[in-house]
């Protein structure tokens, strides 16, 4: 009995000692802070543009898709990134009562490092209330000017002088749509419903002349062009509904069609391009990447993609057909080893491109559930 009591006391003491050692010290009172900068490293910008409230421009790591932060423009937000990747601009709409009420249209300038607004510029309340595309907002003339697509539905382009922080001009572009920024100078080109392209030039005082209209370049009824093309040097390359590539030189006074390439000739399965930002180009390897779908028919030009075609632009040769994940947007990072981003179905996909394997695309990463991403941008 005595032994039992002694053992009990001893074990109880040991247990108390063990428990005391296991209990961590209390948490010290913490201080609320706000992060001062996003995580370092190259970025990918992905916009989820809303028609019913605030839009979302996500900033994720270009290498690993890690979420770094976001900035928040208004409804039907458009987006363009400066070449350095340090400033993202967005033009968006604010209805005073969200579903109704007077509209205000604002250009936001966001600092990327701090994911913060640095400037607001009110512009005419005419911004095209359309799903975001690269050709709806552009920077030109060494990023002195910001161009925004309007539609009332009459089309025009608002020119914002970024140095002055004010609207410089509104240039009517009747019957034409999309802004193709010139490589140099205060100039842009647009695609018109009569099958022509038209170039507009403006001056620092806001004056502008008549557009320089091309000859008829394409047939909007028989073989319409997708409006978001790829810049290849001084040329722009556009895909058509029927699977042709139209090469347009926009460097001169008047846009000129230099070549039409039948990309799908000899390919079985009635393949055709599909999507919106459906064509992108890697400068280092000279390869175009195009979203495609099979069994095409009238009206399927926005269906989910099934393949990504790699097309050697210099050799005019189809290199490889990789499976896609239904994307309707592509973006090529101009990294030495090509890296291709795709967006669709509430996800972003990352593909490694192997130049030694005829530019085959290999899925290496994805970010599922990020939102309905319609357009991406990177300075990479």
């Amino acid at each position, binding site marked *: 009995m005595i032994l039992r009591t002694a053992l009990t006391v001893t074990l109880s003491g040991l247990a108390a000692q063990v428990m005391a050692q296991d209990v961590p010290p209390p948490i010290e009172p913490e201080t609320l802070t706000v992060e001062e900068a996003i995580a370092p490293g190259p970025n990918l910008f992905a916009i*989820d*543009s809303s*028609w*019913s409230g605030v839009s979302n421009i996500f900033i994720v790591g270009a290498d690993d898709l890690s979420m770094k932060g976001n900035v928040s423009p208004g409804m*039907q937000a458009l987006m363009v990134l400066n070449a350095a990747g340090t400033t993202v601009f967005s033009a968006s*709409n604010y*209805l005073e009562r*969200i*579903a*109704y*009420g*007077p*509209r205000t249209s604002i250009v936001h300038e966001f600092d990327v490092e701090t994911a913060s607004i640095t400037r607001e510029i009110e512009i005419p309340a005419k911004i*095209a*209330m*359309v*799903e975001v595309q690269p050709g709806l907002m552009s920077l030109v003339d060494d990023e002195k000017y910001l161009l925004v697509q309007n*539609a*009332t*539905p009459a*089309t025009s382009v608002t020119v914002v002088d970024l140095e002055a922080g004010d609207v410089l001009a509104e240039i009517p572009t009747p*019957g*034409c*749509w*999309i802004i193709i920024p010139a490589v140099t100078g205060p100039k842009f080109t*647009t*695609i*018109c*419903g009569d099958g022509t392209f038209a170039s507009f030039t403006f001056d620092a005082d806001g004056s502008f002349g008549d557009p320089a209209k091309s000859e008829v370049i394409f047939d*909007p009824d028989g073989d*319409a*062009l*997708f*409006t978001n093309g790829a810049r290849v040097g001084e040329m722009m390359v556009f895909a058509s509904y029927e699977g042709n590539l139209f090469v347009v030189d926009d460097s001169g006074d008047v846009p000129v069609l230099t070549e039409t390439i039948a990309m799908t000739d000899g390919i079985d399965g009635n393949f055709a391009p599909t*999507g*919106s930002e459906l064509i992108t180009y890697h400068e280092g390897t000279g390869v175009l990447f195009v979203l495609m779908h099979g069994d095409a*028919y*009238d*009206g*399927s*030009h*926005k*269906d*989910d993609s099934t393949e990504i075609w790699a097309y050697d632009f210099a050799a005019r040769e189809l290199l490889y057909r990789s499976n896609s994940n*239904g*994307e*309707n947007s592509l973006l090529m990072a101009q990294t030495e080893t090509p890296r291709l981003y795709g967006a*669709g*179905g*509430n996800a972003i996909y990352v593909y490694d491109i192997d130049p030694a394997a005829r530019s085959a695309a290999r899925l290496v990463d994805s970010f599922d559930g990020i939102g*309905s991403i*319609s357009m991406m941008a990177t300075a990479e």
Partner: protein
Amino acid sequence: MTKLIDTLLSRLDRAAESGSRAQARSHGRRSFLARLGGTIVGAAVMTPILPFDRRANAAAGAGGDVCAYWRNCALDGFLCQETGGSMTSCPVGSEASAVSWVGTCHNPEDERDYLVSYNDCCGKAMNTTATFCFRSERERPGYRMGLYNDINWCMANSDAQGYYCTVAVVVGQAT
């Protein structure tokens, strides 16, 4: 009689084909609206029904796929008819868009082509329980603005510019 049956079956095949094609479409420029909760075109189960029971298909394609209905051939949006409106009327308390895009759709019942005005209805929150249709036959980008279905056609209204839903109104026979 055999010819009649062949014709009816042919119509059913076309409708079924349209319905199955529709199932592939989920990424329209406006279809991002549907992720808010609406049912995207083609999501309805394809249930065979007799092709000559027109009452069952009064405003639907084969198997009750309402988006496969012929006049919806270029419709991109939530159906107003499932929000208290109809194919040709905006829901109560909303405002019809002042401008619209136009489709040219083939009616298999009379083998005629019709011009269909797709007006958006405006000024209220979207009803995301309504079916979201996304078809783009003869649709063109903004350089043919009157055929463009990616844009908010409430844009020209004086006050109610918020997108609500879409109707499909026959405005005439295509020539």
